[in-house]
């Protein structure tokens, strides 16, 4: 699971949970996988993300190094920043661990890089 995906996941479907966002991360195995760098894509995707959530998520697993906590105004012109963002968004891959609902504490296991967000019938709204 990449951090860009984490940015969009919520446990709001759980019974009694109001926002379920952001999920906290317990990572036991993190892979760094180099993938194509496309600065235009990063530039366009950043406004669609919750940057603060991204930064905190990266920080919580020890990968916030050099990443600004807030986005600077003309970030699209800062190639160094875009490269860092690219790495954190797309290259840091959580292979094994858990996602944890901030309200209920329900854990969602991540195995072989895939978070399992399935709920039982009794758990849903």
């Amino acid at each position, binding site marked *: *699971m*990449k951090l*860009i*995906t984490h940015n*969009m*996941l*919520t*446990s*709001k*479907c759980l019974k009694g949970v109001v926002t379920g*966002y952001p999920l906290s991360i317990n990572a036991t195995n993190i892979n760094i*996988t180099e*993938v*194509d760098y*496309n600065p*235009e*894509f990063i*530039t*366009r*995707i950043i406004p*669609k993300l919750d940057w603060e959530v991204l930064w905190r998520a990266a920080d919580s697993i020890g990968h916030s190094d050099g990443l600004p906590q807030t986005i600077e105004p003309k970030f699209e012109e800062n190639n160094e920043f875009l490269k860092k963002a690219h790495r954190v968004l*797309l290259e840091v891959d959580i292979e094994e661990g858990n996602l944890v609902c901030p309200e209920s504490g329900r854990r*969602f296991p991540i195995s*072989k*890089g*895939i*978070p*399992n*967000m*399935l*709920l039982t*019938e009794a758990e*849903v709204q």
Partner: protein
Amino acid sequence: MEKLKQINRKCKRFSARLKTSKGVLCVETPSTNIVLCNVGQATGFLKEDANNLLQELPTVDLLKYIAAKGESHSFLVFADVESSRLFHEAHNGKAKAMNGTVIYMNYVEGVPSDEILCTVNPPKGLKIIPDFITIEEEKEFITLFDWIDESNLKNRQVKHYGYEFRYGSNDVDLNAPLDKEIPPQCDILWDRLRAQGIAINVPDQLTVNKYLPGQGIPSHVDRHSPFGDTILSLSLGSDVVMDWKHHSNKYVPIVVPARSMLVMQEEARYDWQHAIQPRTWDPIVQIRKHERVITGDTRPRDTRISLTFRKTREGPCECCYNILCDRFKKDGELDNVLASHLEELHVHQVYEQIAGHFSTTRHKRWPRVDEFLQSIPSGAVLLDLGAGNGKNILNRNDILQIAGERSAGLLLECSAHTRAISGSDCVRLDLLHSPLRDECADVIICVAVIHHFCSEARRKQSILTIARLLRPGGVALITVWAKDQTKSNYLDTNKENRDTDLVTTIGGVNLPIHENRTQFQHSDLLVPWKLRQIRDKKLTNTSDTFLRYYHVFEDGELDDLCKPELKIENSFYEEGNWCVVCKKL
């Protein structure tokens, strides 16, 4: 001499071919095992044909004939090397199969195992009491029932006593008892059962089934509500293997001998389905060290008569086994709980079972889907809901592609396929309880998914999810299977519709089984998936055919389902599917 050389050359060629394409190692020195290089199950060669070759060879002792499914070679195992040597000498390059093919053979070291191990325990609450009646009593029971003018079901004859069992609704009409009561000769059975410690109420309904060899009964559970907690079945005339299947996909074959009494209570009564395969033979099942082994050997079936005794009851069932229970069924529309159970059984579990094979058959994107995906602008967030093996994830690094899928098996295929694609990721999710943020997507595709939801309410809920996840102005492409297949390549003109088999799946819901490659006769049905092989010789299910639930869509039905939450931009039919491109306003 020249002839012999020719045969040897042929055998060598077969030997090389078997080694490279099948991994079968032929040897020069005689052993107890022989491979028949060019006859087998695929060429129509049978065990009887092998036995026929022994006629002129009285001293030859053949132990086993092993023919794997779909193979055009087969194996013989002899008791000793002398036997196999005699057989080889007498027939190699000389004997002919029924179709005239000259049979060539080689010695082999080992033969493949034709045994299947079954580690599943029999259902709790299932008792089989052997020799429950004597041979004399069995004869008397058989003569109780004449079979003139009896109603014929598709695959067996039946008679009813006490109340008529109604096959449409799988119950009885308590207001219409039959004149024929259960024959008094049956009364000896009740005390015998009690003497075995089995507490029963005296049954008031009897169904007598007569199965000729080759006939069987589809997988079913006796409906919960109309009948009590004990169902009894007395077997006459022939042993049979009954297949038991739990909804968690456990499977166990159980031998039901003639003259035995089968008692179904607890899980066996309420939580397992049972079936008899329509075959003229049964596999020989052995118990070895508490493990059940389905041997490659078979025995022929005889005519079997079974007496199924039930006690009728009124009101909704009160069992504690939910999955197969019919008390959730409301008139017409399926209750949400029942629909989700049906999906678990006939969608989710099936995809887990067939994931590997299914994936190998799904490579190509449909042209209009591909066109739609290619046109997505750079920087977009795309959700592929029900992504399957990820065949619709494009090799683009300028969009974010999240593949959401419920099947763990398919997701592993998907993840292997998309790993190298820069902006792609996989999430295991349920479309109806999607763990994604509201309005996070610019584009959603949902290809061949919504037809797997078993109720209108759930299909609508899936559309509401798509609308919730799309940002205003975002677009979705949704496709479902169409009931009308006349304009697709799906139909096989050589195939006619047969009588449809009905399967009582769960909760007393009867679903027809679709005949593949024919026009759809129903809107809600089960579509068979034939698995290519049993993996690792370990049996996980009754057979290699799995039934997937589909709701096939009428013209305009998908458009109606999408409105008013989504605005239809384009609606079209492609290769047997209804497709819409729609926009969130």
